[in-house]
C-alpha cells in the first residue's frame, strides 16, 4: 500500500516534470552538414509533383509540402515562427514580394544564398537581396495585365476582341483615366460593374509609383497629407467608385468567386500569378481574355522568392532545394501548372512559356502577352520602394477607397478620414 502510494507520487512528479520540460526540449538535432531524410516547403501555390519527384531521385531526400490556403496565412505562420526563434518553420519558405521587406527586417534570420550567375532578370536579384547578400531565389514576377470578360463586352455592344478592347480602354497611350472613362461608358450600357474592385486597381497604380508612402533614402514614412501622388490617384479612383464602376468585391472576399459565376464585372486587374486563381474561380465560364496593354505603361505586382530560414536544421540541403525549385526548367513547369510568369531569363525566352495557349483565356498565349507587358513596363517592372510600414499604410489607404466604393463616404470625406487615421498612428511625428 505504502509502496503504491509512493510510486503514485513519483509518477505524478515525473508527469509534471515531463509536462514542464516537454515545452523546452524540442529542437536540437544536427546542423547543416548531414543530408536529411526529408525537407519541408511552406507554400500557398501548387508545386508540380514531377519536380519534387525529380529532386527526390537526384538527392534521395523526400520533400513534404506544408500547404497554405493563401499567402496571408503563410505570412502569419512565418511571422510567428520568426518571432519565436524559428519554432514551427519549414526548411524552405515561399515569400511574396509584398511582405518581403517585413520578413527581411532581420537579415540574420535568413541563410545567405550563393549567387547563381545569369539566371534571373537583374531587378529580381536585387529585390531578393539585402545589401549585397542574396536572401531569396526568385520564383516568379507579377507583370500587370487586365483580364476582361468578352462575353459581357459583346452583350453591351462594345469591342470584345483583344485588339478592339485595347483600343477601347485607350490604346497604346492608355492611362488610368482613360481606363476608368471606358468603365463609365461600359456601366452606362450594362448592368454589370466595370471592375471587381476599385481598390485592386488602386493598388496596382500604387505599385507603379517609384516611392509610394516612404522615403527610399531614410525609410521613414512620408506625411500622407502632403503626398500629392497618392492623393491624385485616390481622387481619380474615388470618383470612379462614386460613379459606380466597381462591384466593390476584392480578391479574397467571400463574394469574389460567386461574382465571377454571376458575371458581375467585366474586368479584373490580373498580375500573372492571378491567372491561375481567376481560372479556378471562374471555372466553366467562357469569354475571359487578357488585354494586350496596361494603363500607364504597366508594372509589377508581387512575385515570390524561395528563402531558407537560418534556424532550420538542414539549411544546406534546403538551399539546394531552393536552387532546384528556381531553376529555369522548374520555372517553366510552374508556369504550366499555375500560370506564374518566370523571373528566370532562360525560362522567359523558352517558347513553351511564350507560345503555350492558355485554355481558359480563349487559347491566348498568356506567357507571351505577359512577357511583352513586362518588357514595355521598363523600369516600372521592378516596382517601387517598400519600407517596413508599406503594408500598413497601404491597407489604410485602400480602406479609404473601399469606403467610397460602399457608399459610406464621398471622395473628399474619405481622403480626409484616411489622412486623419494616418496622423493618429503617429508615424511622422
Amino acid at each position: 500500500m505504502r509502496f503504491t502510494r509512493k510510486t503514485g507520487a513519483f509518477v505524478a512528479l515525473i508527469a509534471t516534470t515531463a509536462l514542464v520540460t516537454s515545452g523546452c526540449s524540442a529542437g536540437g538535432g544536427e546542423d547543416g552538414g548531414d543530408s536529411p531524410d526529408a525537407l519541408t516547403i511552406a507554400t500557398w501555390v501548387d508545386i508540380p509533383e514531377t519536380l519534387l519527384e525529380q529532386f527526390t531521385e537526384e538527392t534521395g531526400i523526400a520533400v513534404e509540402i506544408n500547404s497554405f490556403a493563401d499567402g496571408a496565412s503563410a505570412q502569419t505562420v512565418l511571422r510567428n515562427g520568426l518571432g519565436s526563434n524559428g519554432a514551427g518553420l519549414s526548411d524552405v519558405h515561399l515569400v511574396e514580394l509584398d511582405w518581403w521587406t517585413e520578413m527581411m527586417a532581420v537579415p540574420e534570420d535568413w541563410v545567405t544564398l550563393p549567387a547563381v550567375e545569369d539566371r534571373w532578370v537583374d531587378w529580381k536579384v536585387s529585390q531578393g537581396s539585402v545589401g549585397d547578400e542574396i536572401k531569396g531565389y526568385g520564383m516568379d514576377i507579377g507583370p500587370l495585365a487586365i483580364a476582361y470578360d468578352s462575353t459581357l463586352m459583346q452583350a453591351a455592344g462594345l469591342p470584345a476582341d483583344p485588339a478592339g478592347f485595347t483600343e477601347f480602354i485607350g490604346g497604346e497611350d492608355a492611362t488610368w483615366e482613360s481606363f476608368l472613362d471606358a468603365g463609365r461608358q461600359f456601366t452606362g450600357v450594362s448592368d454589370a460593374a466595370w471592375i471587381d474592385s476599385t481598390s485592386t486597381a488602386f493598388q496596382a497604380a500604387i505599385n507603379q509609383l517609384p516611392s509610394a508612402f516612404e522615403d527610399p533614402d531614410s525609410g521613414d514614412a512620408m506625411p500622407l497629407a502632403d503626398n500629392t501622388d497618392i492623393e491624385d490617384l485616390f481622387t481619380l479612383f474615388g470618383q470612379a467608385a462614386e460613379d459606380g464602376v466597381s462591384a466593390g468585391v476584392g480578391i479574397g472576399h467571400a463574394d469574389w468567386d460567386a461574382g465571377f459565376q454571376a458575371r458581375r464585372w467585366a474586368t479584373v486587374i490580373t498580375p500573372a500569378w492571378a491567372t491561375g486563381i481567376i481560372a479556378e474561380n471562374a471555372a466553366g465560364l467562357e469569354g475571359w481574355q487578357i488585354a494586350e496593354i496596361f494603363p500607364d505603361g504597366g508594372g509589377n505586382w508581387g512575385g515570390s522568392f524561395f528563402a531558407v530560414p537560418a534556424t532550420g536544421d538542414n539549411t544546406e540541403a534546403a538551399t539546394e532545394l531552393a536552387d532546384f525549385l528556381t531553376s529555369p526548367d522548374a520555372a517553366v513547369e510552374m508556369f504550366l501548372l499555375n500560370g506564374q510568369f518566370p523571373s528566370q531569363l532562360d525560362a522567359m525566352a523558352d517558347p513553351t512559356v511564350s507560345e503555350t495557349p492558355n485554355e481558359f483565356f480563349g487559347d491566348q498565349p498568356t506567357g507571351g502577352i505577359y512577357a511583352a507587358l513586362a518588357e514595355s513596363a521598363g523600369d516600372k517592372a521592378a516596382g517601387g520602394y517598400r519600407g517596413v510600414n508599406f503594408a500598413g499604410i497601404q491597407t489604410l489607404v485602400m480602406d479609404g477607397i473601399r469606403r467610397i466604393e460602399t457608399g459610406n463616404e464621398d471622395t473628399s470625406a474619405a481622403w480626409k478620414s484616411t489622412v486623419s487615421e494616418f496622423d493618429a498612428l503617429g508615424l511622422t511625428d
Partner: protein
Amino acid sequence: MTPLTPAPRRVGFSRKLSRWDIKVSPYLYISPFFLSFAVFGFFPIIFNIWVALHEWDRRLGQGEFVGLDNFAWVLNQPAFWTSLQNTFSIFVLALVPQLILSLLIAAILDQNLRTKTFWRMSILIPFVVMPVASAMIFSQVFGQFGLVTPLLHDLGWFTDVDSPFFHNRFLSHVAIATMIVFRWTGYNALIFLAAMQAVPRDLYEAATIDGAGRARQFFSVTIPSIRPTMIFVILTMTIGGLQVFDEARVFDGSGSGGTGQGGSDDQWLTTVLYLFNLGFGDWQDRMGQAAAVAWLFALVIIVFTLLNFFLTRAIADSGSRPTRASRAAAKKLVAQVRAEANAPTTHAERPTLTEGSQR
C-alpha cells in the same frame, strides 16, 4: 535523543515519508493544472504588463521602456473606441436572442419528449462545428449571392449596395451576432435544461392545480427557479461575448487581399480583432500597443462583468425573492404545517411526486 538503531530509524523515516506522502502527493496530483496554468495562463498575463510598458517589435522583441505611452497611444486611436462600440453592439445583439432562444429550447426539451437524448444532442451540433467553419458558411449566407441579401433586394431594401452586410455597420453586427447565436444557443440551452431538471416537480403540480397554463408555469415557476443558473450563464456570456474574434475575423473572407480586418470603415472591428491587427497584422512594431489594448480591455470586461453581476442580481432580488420579513413568516408557516402533517421531511415526498409527474 538516544542514537537510533538502524531498524527503528528506517521505520521512522518511512513513516515520515508516508506523512509527507499524504501531505504532498495530493498537491502533486493536481499540480499539472497549476503548472500549466502558471506557464500558459499566469505568466503571459504578467509578462503582458512588461510588454505594454515597452516599445516592442514583433521580430526584434523588447525595445525602449516607454512607460504609459502605449496606453496613451491606444486611447488616442479612434479605431480603439470604434472597436469598443462594435463589441458592445454585437454583444447585446447576440445576448438577447441567445437568452430567449436557449430558455425556450430548454423549456421544450424539459417536457416529456420521445427520443430525448437525440434532441439534446442535436441542439449541441452547432457548438461542435468549428467556429471558423461556421463563420465561413455564414459569410456566404450574408454575401451578395447568399440567402439573405437577395431577399432584402426583393423587399426593396439596400438595393444600391451589393451586400449590405459587408458595408452597413448595423447589419454587419446583426450578421456576426447571428453566428454567435447559432453557435452558443444550444450550449446555453443545455445548461438551462440541467437547471430546469432540478426544479421540483411538485411546484408544477401545484401550479397546474392552481390553474396555471404552460406559459404561466414557465414564467412563474421555471424562470424564478433557475435564477442562479441564469446569472451564471449571463456572466459567462458576457465574458465570452465580449471576446468576439473568430466570427469577425473570418466574416468577409480573411485577410488575403480582402479587408478581413473588420471592414473598411471598421464596421465590425471588435476589440480583440483590433488587438490582433495591432500585434499580428500589417505593423511590425505594434506589440506593445497590442498589449496595452489587452490590459485596457481586460479592465473593461472586469468592470462590465461586475456591473452585469450586480444588475442581474438586483433584478433577481427585486423579482419574486421574498423580503426578509416575509421569508421569516413563511418559515414559521412551513414549520407549522410540517408539524401538523407530521411529515418527516419534504425531501422524502419529492421522489414519489416526481415519479408521478413524469409518468
